[in-house]
């Protein structure tokens, strides 16, 4: 009996070091681009432009000078974003599980959830500020949660529902109860969908927090720092604030990706093959 397996087992030893080499080589072009952009930016910013889109060096300076303030603000905004992310994800999961059984509920809810991605949800930020208090981080958390909720709901529902009909037949041929089908088939099937939504949600949570702050908030958050430094003309500080917010979002995204690799080891292998 000939063996026709495609790849066998984890790669270790000499293979790993060549993988690292390949990774390094692949990062050269984008890093090169980054350096070129930074250098050009630094050199070209001039005159009035220099004031409004400051060169990277000025931004770095502003960041260092105001480090303490930025650090506090970054933590506060991140706190709001994480809180909203958790709320939105849990909410989306709960509603998805609750409605996954009843096709009618799904038929009504799902188009609405999809339509909501077309609506500028952030328009309700002022309302949330009114409801929960403009200085209260909860209002920004709710904004973030609202943005995260819909993608999670849509994806988890799809994951629970879109199983191969043959798989369901298989389970029925083993006289599996509905609960067993849920536990052993639908939930594992749903996990990749959930992580896709969470990766998108990581960014959305920061958008929700920041934009919520733009519409009004306490003075110790990134959004406030950005807006006030903008109106007072300290553009370097404003850019520094935004870049820190962006960095935080990227870190959040990477953390979710790492958790994903651990939780669903089969997926990355599947995509690699």
């Amino acid at each position, binding site marked *: 009996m000939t063996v026709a397996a495609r790849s066998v087992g984890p790669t270790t030893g000499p293979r790993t070091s060549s993988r690292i080499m390949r990774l390094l080589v692949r990062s050269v072009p984008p890093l090169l681009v980054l350096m070129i952009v930074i250098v050009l930016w630094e050199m070209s910013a001039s005159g009035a432009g220099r004031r409004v889109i400051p060169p990277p060096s000025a931004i770095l300076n502003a960041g260092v000078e105001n480090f303490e303030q930025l650090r506090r603000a970054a933590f506060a905004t991140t706190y709001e974003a994480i809180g909203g992310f958790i709320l939105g994800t849990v909410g989306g999961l709960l509603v998805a599980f609750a409605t996954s059984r009843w096709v009618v509920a799904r038929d*009504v809810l799902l*188009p609405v959830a999809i339509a909501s991605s077309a*609506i500028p949800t952030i328009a309700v930020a002022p309302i949330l500020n009114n409801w929960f208090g403009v200085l209260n981080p909860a209002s920004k958390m709710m904004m973030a949660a609202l943005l995260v909720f819909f993608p999670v709901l849509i994806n988890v529902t799809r994951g629970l529902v879109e199983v191969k009909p043959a798989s369901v037949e298989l389970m029925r041929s083993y006289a599996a109860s509905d609960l067993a089908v849920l536990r052993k088939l639908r939930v594992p099937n749903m996990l990749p969908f959930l992580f896709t939504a969470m990766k998108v949600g990581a960014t959305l949570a920061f*958008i929700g927090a920041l934009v919520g702050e733009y*519409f009004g908030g306490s003075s110790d958050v990134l959004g406030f720092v950005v807006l006030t430094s903008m109106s007072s003309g300290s553009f370097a500080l*404003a850019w520094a604030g935004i870049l820190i*917010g*962006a960095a935080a979002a*990227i870190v959040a995204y990477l953390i979710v990706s790492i958790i994903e690799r651990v939780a669903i080891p089969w997926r990355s292998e599947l995509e690699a093959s």
Partner: protein
Amino acid sequence: MSTEPEVELQSSAASTGVPSVPVLPGEPSQKQRAVRRVLSFALFLLGFALVWEGAKWLAGDKWRLTSIGYEHTPPFRIQQLSDLNLPHLWDIVASFGEPFQRNANYSLLNYLIDQALFTWGEALIGFGVGAAIGIALASILVHSGLLERAFVPYVVASQTVPIVALAPLIVVSFGRGLTSIVIIATYLTFFPVTIAVMRGLRSPDPRAVELMRSYAGSRWDIYRKVRLPASVPYLFTALKIAAAASLVGTIIGEGPGGVQQGLGRAILTFNQQYITGPEKLWATIIVAAGVGLLFFMLVQAAEAFVVRQRGGRARTA
């Protein structure tokens, strides 16, 4: 009767690799599905309205409907359901007809529609420019491995960065005018379009490309006749996302960015004046939602049109 049926022993499984599970006939038609969707949407709106007013009935402010002589004191009290925080739906609807400001001579509805068109116009320009740039960029990147490896990580990374948060900064940087708003909308559009079109341009069956080459088709021919058509579905998926994103970016650019017109400004204004007229802010939100939906449906309609031109069947969303 000894007819000799041409026995067809072609297994669909063998030819396509797809198992042929017996499908129970009786699936709803396109029209039935569309009707069902409209009905379920109407049902949802009704349910939503019921929940809204129902919650206020249970825990809002005292109801005093003088026109029909109905009074009711709710048994519970939740602050968020007060008339200030959650106006009655009919009050919101009524406010559309009232003047948008004291001593103004046109109605809130008129005012909001003006602002909506302003905002949408800006978003649309950015959307169009962004889509064009995205398609062009994707076409270039697909044909050059080096450029692709250099730029794609940024295109992908941009999806994880809250670019929208940059909006006010860009408005201020480039001046409070049409230009900066359009820049925002362009920026927010071209990233998803680039990624999607790249995937689409790469999607055709390699055998179709081989076929073209066997006819001595040049890379340009292959691009025009195989890759570009194949990328259309991917393009439209990205356009639907971009529509919403460019709209959101425009609103944020206007509001916190300090532009004097548009829905973003209207939101800020009515928020400042919230105490004197809470319904107006809600009305603005409804209009913003409406613009978003309309934009989305326009893109969907465009997609259906293009698909039908090519003889395919429209995909259901």
